[in-house]
């Protein structure tokens, strides 16, 4: 049989799914063992048990100075920045995406500008953001917004343009004004696309968040990682990395499920 026609059954598929994860853990464990055999105090690849221990300490022990558990307060601060940033970007992306997609005059005015804007490397203008907005929350949220909004606008306006012309004409023959077409035909049809686009932009959003926090901040997960780097605290860094990965994965999964729940008509064949 051809390889392209060989499909794993369900239990085997589950096992195959786990293999790469287990392989990475095993490789780490072995490498760590080798290094610690030479030097028991090795800081570069701490033992898995040591990392678990550190993780337990991180999530339970309050900071001696502030009395807060830094792990959770860092999480809260970072998530807040991320969600506000992505939320603002999604809103701007949706509004401008609809306007540019629906109205030829808006398209003629802004489509070229947005495609040039999306080529500006956001990290290159981070210093400008720090100078203009200071080192507080605004500059970090602004970086996320600036980083992902052009992509969202371009993607959504393209999705609006892709709505079949037949549907637009049909709506007009039912007496819909431009506003009604925007609100009742285009908006509901691009909302599931917005969720998809936001899912895709979560990766860059995390990148910009960590970068901004690493450079100038006094709280947040990116700040913490870059702070403990000075002490070669690999156990802390790895705990945070795993936690961030888990959070990003859960957000992605939640958005996917939300899309399936809220838009049961989306992505099905037959039209």
């Amino acid at each position, binding site marked *: 049989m051809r390889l392209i026609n060989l499909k794993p059954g369900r239990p085997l598929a589950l096992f195959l799914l786990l293999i790469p994860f287990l392989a990475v853990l095993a490789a780490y464990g072995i490498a760590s063992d080798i290094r610690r055999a030479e030097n028991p105090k090795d800081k570069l690849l701490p033992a898995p048990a040591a990392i678990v221990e550190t993780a337990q300490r991180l999530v339970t022990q309050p900071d001696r100075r502030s009395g807060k558990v830094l792990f959770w307060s860092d999480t809260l601060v970072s998530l807040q920045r991320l969600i506000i940033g992505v939320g603002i970007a999604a809103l701007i992306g949706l509004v401008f995406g609809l306007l540019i997609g629906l109205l030829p005059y808006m398209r003629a005015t802004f489509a070229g500008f947005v495609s040039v804007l999306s080529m500006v490397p956001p990290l290159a203008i981070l210093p400008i953001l720090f100078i203009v907005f200071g080192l507080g929350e605004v500059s970090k949220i602004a970086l996320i917004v600036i980083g992902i909004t052009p992509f969202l606008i371009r993607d959504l306006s393209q999705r609006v343009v892709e709505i079949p012309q037949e549907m637009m*004409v*049909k*709506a*007009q023959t*039912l007496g819909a004004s431009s506003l009604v077409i925007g609100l009742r035909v285009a908006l509901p049809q691009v909302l599931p696309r917005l969720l998809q686009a936001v899912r895709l932009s979560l990766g860059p959003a995390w990148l910009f968040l960590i970068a901004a926090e690493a450079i100038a901040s006094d709280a947040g997960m990116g700040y913490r990682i870059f702070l403990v780097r000075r002490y070669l605290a690999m156990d802390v860094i790895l705990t945070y990395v795993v936690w961030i990965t888990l959070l990003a994965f859960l957000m992605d999964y939640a958005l996917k499920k939300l899309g399936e729940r809220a838009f049961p008509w989306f992505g099905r064949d*037959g*039209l």
Partner: protein
Amino acid sequence: MSFVVAEDIHQSYGPRPILERVSITAEEGEFVSIVGASGCGKSTFLRLLLAQEVPTRGEIRVAGEPPAKEPGQARGVVFQRYSVFPHMTVRDNVVAATAFAANATGWLFGGAKRKARADADTVLARIGLAHVADQYPAALSGGMQQRLAIGQALSAKPRILLLDEPFGALDPGTRLSMHDFLMDMRAETGMTVFMVTHDLEEGFKLGDRVLVFDKPRWDPIEPEAYGATITYDFDARDGGIPFQNLTSPEGTNAAS
């Protein structure tokens, strides 16, 4: 004056003529089938009737009103695909026919909403879709979707109904039952209908008249030099016998 009047229509895309010297009139309640080979401008003519495009020369008037510049409520339309809104339930698709034109937001509230939903349910019962009122169009078969599209278009009470190969994507059995359905709807509403079809038999079966679009002039070196026009205007009533008549060289209907 006739109900639908198209006078000396020319349509070109850039330097390329598509339609030339198309003139036709139709009476209220007539069913006009439009046939012709691919690329002979029959869909273009339908888009002109729909006012989705404006002709480069000539004008089309419906019910004596000034020529339309964009699609509106006077014209109902059913396309081969994408004629219903996938994000609305079957009932909401029919409600949309009243809601879209009702106010600035396109949403109905309170009593108006209840009435529109009740009216929609009457329409759905009539077109045999009452049992799927709460489902999304994607769950419907192709024939059911087209029935919904026709019901939705008629709910907006257009002056003329335009059909662009409405049954082109359906299997032969469904197509036959859709013919019966369309004839029933037409008998009930007395609607003026223009239907573009690839299927000659369908055109003659359903239409009172069959218009044939073709290119009367043909340049062998530059096939795109000339546009198409109406070359035949058959009387298709009584099985097409015995009232056939040819159009005059100018393309005007000799019978009218």
